[in-house]
């Protein structure tokens, strides 16, 4: 056989790679969010689905257009833009006008992500940064409808603001909250709020799927939710620490944020030690904002603030060097210090 006819490549080892690429990972996260989306459609009507699709398509379109304009490769099919779009829709109320959604999509994809170099280079979570930006339309962003309401797809929305659990918690009104929403309602998701954050149960299901598929690890979600749980249990507002703690954990965007936003690869540390520090930091800031802030929810800003610390966390965590005994390491550092 004549081997000269083959088109052979010469390149560095390794010569095999796992099938799991960036697109697979983003796709799995989108799949993990589908149960929560299904519940949102049930809870808020088809508008929840339309919002999500509009936002996903919007993000993909901005990603494609920006890169086509600058003659860069098309990265729509790594699905990271689609995931960002899905998360943006998830952190907005169902009544959000479509144009605000698209403005958020633009901010997330073009300003936060592409201007910093595209996938992997942004230092803020694009979806949360977009949410922070969209809060410029404070009224639209905090118009909540009651659970199990069908919202019209178009036209003006009755500006009836229905109190979310976070509003009660912010007023330290645990009793009012307990009368409005029972704990099982909180768990399953028959509550008011952003479309993707209401069903804690289905979000946890999705998160468990991601942990099972080794897309994410338990470190950030457990340390984040754990910190919030411990703090709210130790410093309850009211005389029932356990109930106060449970409402704080299940209410607002904590579960969605801890499982799907704080675990974003690009904007979280790379080591497990870093993950735990990051999670604890998110938890501390979340509780701080919820307790002392003017705004009732702290998850979004907590994660954004911790995003800014990732660089310093990563820089200061060094794995134990192979072949260097752990006991010897400490005195050496001391000697250096002297």
């Amino acid at each position, binding site marked *: *056989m004549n*081997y000269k*006819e*083959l*088109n*052979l*490549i*010469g*390149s*560095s*080892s*390794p*010569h*095999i*790679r*796992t*099938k*799991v*690429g*960036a697109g*697979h*990972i983003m796709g799995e996260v989108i799949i993990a969010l589908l149960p929560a989306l299904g519940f949102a459609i049930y809870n808020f009507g088809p508008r929840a689905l339309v919002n999500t699709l509009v936002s996903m398509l919007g993000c993909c379109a901005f990603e494609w257009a920006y890169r086509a304009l600058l003659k860069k*490769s098309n*990265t729509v099919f790594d699905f*990271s833009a689609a995931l960002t779009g899905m998360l943006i829709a998830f952190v907005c109320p169902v009544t959000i006008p479509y144009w605000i959604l698209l403005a958020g999509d633009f901010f997330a994809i073009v300003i936060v992500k592409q201007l910093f170099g*595209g*996938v*992997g280079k942004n230092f803020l979570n694009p979806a949360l940064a977009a949410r922070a930006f969209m809060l410029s339309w404070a009224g639209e962003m905090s118009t909540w409808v009651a659970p199990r309401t069908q919202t019209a797809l178009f036209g003006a929305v009755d500006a009836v603001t229905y109190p979310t659990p976070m509003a009660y918690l912010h007023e330290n009104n645990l009793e009012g909250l307990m009368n409005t929403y029972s704990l099982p309602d909180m768990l399953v998701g028959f509550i008011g709020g952003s479309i993707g954050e209401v069903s804690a149960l289905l979000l946890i299901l999705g998160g468990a799927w991601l942990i099972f598929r080794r897309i994410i690890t338990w470190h950030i979600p457990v340390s984040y939710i754990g910190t919030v749980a411990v703090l709210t249990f130790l410093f309850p507002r009211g005389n029932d620490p356990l109930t106060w703690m449970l409402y704080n954990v299940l209410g607002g965007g904590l579960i969605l944020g801890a499982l799907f936003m704080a675990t974003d*690869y*690009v904007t*979280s*540390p*790379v*080591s*497990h030690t870093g993950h735990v520090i990051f999670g604890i930091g998110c938890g501390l800031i979340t509780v701080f904002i919820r307790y002392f802030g003017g705004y009732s929810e702290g998850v979004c800003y907590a994660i954004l603030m911790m995003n800014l610390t990732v660089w310093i966390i*990563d820089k200061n965590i*060094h*794995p*134990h*060097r*192979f*072949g*260097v005994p752990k006991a010897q390491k400490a005195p050496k550092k001391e000697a250096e210090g002297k």
Partner: protein
Amino acid sequence: MAQAFFGGIHPNDHKAATNKKPTETLPPPAQVVIPMSLHIGAPCTPCVAVGDHVRVGQPVGEASAFVSAPVHASVSGTVKAVEPRIHFSGVPVMSVVIENDFNDTPYDRTPPRDPDHLTAEQICEIVKNAGIVGMGGATFPTHVKISSGLGKVDTVIVNASECEAYITSDHRFLLEHPDDVIGGMKVLARLFGVDRVHIAIEDNKANAAEMLKLKIESERAPVVVDILRTRYPQGAEKQLCQSITGRQVPPGALPAAIGCAVFNVFTTAAIYRALYYGEPVTHRIVTVSGSGVVEPKNFYCPIGTPIQDLLDACGGVKKSTFKIIVGGPMMGHAQHDMAAPVGKGTNGVLAFCENEERNIPEPACIRCGKCVSVCPMHLQPVFLYQYEQAGMLAELEQNNILDCIECGSCAYICPGRLHLVQAFRAGKQRINNAKAAAKAAAEKAAKKEQEAAAAKKEGKA
């Protein structure tokens, strides 16, 4: 069953293609090319001339330094050329080309009279003269390993883990020649004065482990079989020492530093054959496999066989083959010339025609940290890559890039498809170049100073 080392990966091992196929003897090649560099260390000096007749096992290259090992003719015939020829590392290497006369006339072998009662020095000498090197792929001269480990080693490990995918040569060898391996382990036990020698086998080779256990029991051999979890790079020397003893080899050191010595199964058997039969290393088993190979097989073939003979004996390769590798898929060398010969450490020849590499036009890091969680050397490839791309050599060195064993786990797992190993090889090279340049500059400055001082003295005088 333990997996004591951190990280690692578990690719589909594809061993089923060849692990049940008995080794076939390759039809004798018309010509073999014996490179003078079949080991790590100083290349050999050819000791035959064009036109000489050589016999199987006759030395054709002499070791020129301590860290070196002689090379031997693997067929009998006439020396056709002594010239640089293509080597599986990709560059031409001084080689002895022998035209096969197909008689396989053996060279005079004089096995030691009393192989059971040799001193360590004598064993080292025999091992050196037999050209024995680490036949798992690293090809470190075995006599150096033995002499540098004597007196320090308390754990002797025979490496049959064969963690590279596709490769089944160690596995087949164990099944087909267990007596040679056990014989070699007895020698090692005596040599290092240990009660028992460990043989490390991954659990995907359970039949070999069972067979060995039965044999060891009936022979009362000083051997213990350690079954390890199938996990790449279980067979890497440092990781294997860690799996068996829990000890970690210090940076820049050899396993002897922690009392370990690791020998490949072929190497172990070669020591036995050299001591008891006077045979040098002339043949080995090579697995020919991969999606591009028409019929994957294991071959017993002379060292120096051109890899195209091996591929031809498997019915050739498919038209769509885009890569041919000597070695395993994780650490092997891609080949461009099929005249490259089989070396002492060549355990496989692979041809790929499907999209095994999964390269993408624009690799991008998504900071997932998977590379950190698989690195068996506790490195952070994600940051090393950034430092390398930015040319930050000081940071690269501070973050221990020189500890990298180039196992490829990080590049294998990378969803952004970065060329991590390639970048780290380049980074290491740049650091070493910079060090060499700094050393040369310092020497030059010292010389100048000396000259100036001498001139001053002269002037005074």
